[in-house]
């Protein structure tokens, strides 16, 4: 279980980092989204992995650490808002700069019309 979760987080982070280093804002945005998924998973398991444990006190014998669940909810909401802002900004940048490259320069002039 731990190994599975660790591999999943690692794979997401790796893909996220790879996409972050791409030149186009769309790929970078996908990379950021993947990175934030990995981070959210990481926060979620930071309280330890338990199976069959309730989130509410008194509802079951064993219970999971509730704080990481609260933290991850906050992180998801914030990440969602930030991604939405970034999408709008990227569209605006596409309109202003005439291409969707992060540095706005065009690939050595080839992309310019």
């Amino acid at each position: 279980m731990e190994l599975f979760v660790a591999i999943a987080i690692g794979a997401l982070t790796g893909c996220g980092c790879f996409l972050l280093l791409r030149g186009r804002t769309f790929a970078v945005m996908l990379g950021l989204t993947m990175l934030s998924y990995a981070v959210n998973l990481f926060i979620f398991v930071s309280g330890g992995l338990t199976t069959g444990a309730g989130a509410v006190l008194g509802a079951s014998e064993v219970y999971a650490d509730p704080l990481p669940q609260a933290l991850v909810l906050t992180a998801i909401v914030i990440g969602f808002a930030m991604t939405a802002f970034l999408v709008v900004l990227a569209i605006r940048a596409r309109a202003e700069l005439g291409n969707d490259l992060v540095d706005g320069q065009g690939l050595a002039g080839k992309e310019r019309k």
Partner: protein
Amino acid sequence: MTEHLVVLPIVLPALFAAILLLPMGGIRVSRRRWYSLALMTLSLLVASWLLWQHTNTPAKNYLLGNWPEPFGILLVADQLSVLMVWLTTVLAWCVCLHSTAGDDVKGAYFHPLLHFLLMGLNGAFLTGDLFNLFVFFEVLLISSYGLLIHGGGKKRVQSALHYVLLNLVGSALFLLALALLYSLLGTLHLAEMAARVRLLDPQQQWLLQSAAALLLLVFGLKAALLPLHFWLPAAYSQASASVAAMFAVMTKVGVYSLIRVFGALFAADAGALAGYGQTLLLWGGGLTMVLATVLLVAAADLKKLSAAMVLLSAGILLSAVGFGDSALTAAALLYLVHSSWIGAVWFMLAERIGQQRGTVGDRLVPGAALKQALLLGWLFALSALVVIGMPPFSGFVSKIWLLQASLPRSDAGWYVLLLLLSSLLALVALSRAGSTIFWRSRGKPIDAVQSGKTADAAIMLLLVMGFLLVVAGQWWMQYCIDAVAQLTVGGRGR
């Protein structure tokens, strides 16, 4: 009432921003901006009251909703956080005044965003909990994204895109560090964490170390530490003047977080990891100073020059904090207040000068004579004297204190040298800029210039506030020394 005072610098700006967002049934912007200024005055009064209340008093914890201590959301008002809140609110008030000269109508929602930014900044200063530090960072960041593209334009959008992307990656790393710290220490309550670091199993030290490295990366990005500074010159010089002036305090948030979090977690008695990151800050800060000085001398326009000065002040602060010496940290606090205000003055001044030179703008080439040459010339000369550190201005007092505190240390020789050298080169760069703009002008002044009485007033007000740091010098120095003393006492657990 007074015990709830601590939460007001966060609640009030949020409320004010919401009020300013309401549709106001046809009231014109020229009227609404004064409402914003009036509300900002209320924030300033509250911040001043808070400063007054907390001078010479022990740190006070405020529990939101009265939940018991390690579980509820905690705000801590000690001398350091209250000082930061006050200095930021003073700056925000002056920026609000400055924006009424016309910056606020270049795009939508300037005033609500400014109030939200103030809320995020105040929250980041007052929180006693690492996760809430993250939340308030995000509040201040999303307002700053909105403010940065305020007014629009090609270059502005491009620099904003870089700023937003970098900060989003920074936020992801911050969350990673938080999750790692939580799984190691079982809490994100700062004072509680500081106590548990000392009890940590030595075999898990490397995990703590990697979390600390991630935090250092995040705060270094905010504070523009050398390899992480690339966003600063572009973002600051492209932003509109009011926004850039407000951003003068943003790098200081990174420095503050470093003092607060690293000072608490890795205090001198924290065991194996005591003083973690200090060497890196020391050398990173020193190199930032060198680079900023080069940028200062090489700047082609006044805005780039101002951005280089912000970078220079960040370098000076980071190095001073890196020594981990309480006398130097106290001196750095005074320098922090001084440099935030004077940094803002330079962005405002650059815009005023650029407006009166037609197409030449604020580039450092000979252009038309200025319409208000006398007023702006005096303001330029005064601000230059303040930022270089000539007596009797705040730059002199804070720099001489930094020198005085670093001279007894045998390992601080290079710091003294860099501080003096960067001041000398700032003198050269500013004299060159001033003589080009004011003395080598040709042609008649351009008549149709935007009047900016409130902008000039904001510049003068910030200069006067800076001068008050000198007039009440004894009081301020004592305040900074007390603030640092309180920090080291607070770091030893509750």
